[in-house]
């Protein structure tokens, strides 16, 4: 029973974070939320008895993809992007 409650709340939080990730107007926020989403996915994999995927998700899915995205965002919001950032809230 406890397990099911955990599963339901985890699923709900995953969906909520994904929704925030998709709809937030701010690019940087979206990346951070996406990384949080990946960490929660790790929990979901553990609940699904898939320890291998949990490991891979942490290392590759969240760690590397997140790092790549942060790096890309840092790149494209620098330089000319900085002016743009000043012009509107993103």
């Amino acid at each position, binding site marked *: 029973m406890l*397990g*099911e409650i955990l*599963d*339901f709340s985890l*699923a709900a939080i*995953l*969906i909520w974070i*994904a*929704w925030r*990730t*998709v*709809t937030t*107007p701010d*690019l940087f926020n*979206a*990346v951070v939320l*996406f990384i949080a*989403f*990946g960490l929660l*996915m790790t929990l*979901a*994999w553990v*609940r*699904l*008895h*898939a320890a*291998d*995927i949990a490991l*891979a*998700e942490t290392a*590759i*899915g969240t760690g*590397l*993809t997140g790092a*790549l*995205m942060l*790096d*890309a*965002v840092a*790149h*494209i919001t620098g330089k*000319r*992007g900085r002016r743009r950032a000043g012009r509107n809230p*993103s």
Partner: protein
Amino acid sequence: MHVTVPTGTLGGGRKSGTVMIGGGLIYAMAGVVLFALGFYGFIVHAHLVRRLIAFNIMGSGVFLVLVGLPQRVAGTPPDRVSEALVLTGIVVAVSATAFGLALVRRLYDLTGETRLPNDPRPEP
């Protein structure tokens, strides 16, 4: 361990008492919702990084369905094949994401744009 139920019955728990909705079904459902959400983000966003994020959310949704569905009956042993498939899928997704992000950076260096040319969607 393995229980067969007539096709098309939902959960079936009330019927025979031997089959329960497993945690797998919850996650498969969540996977479907994530897929739809990611799809929405993929369409509405013009910013290429946002679209790649949406693609990754869609992908996570598919992976949850892939692993969740075979475990939807409680007590089914985890399906190692689907687990291996998802591992393959994660690696494919990260390859595509890395390639896509590198392309976005280069496009930005050349044009100063982070969206595709002739995109009808205004910049958010």
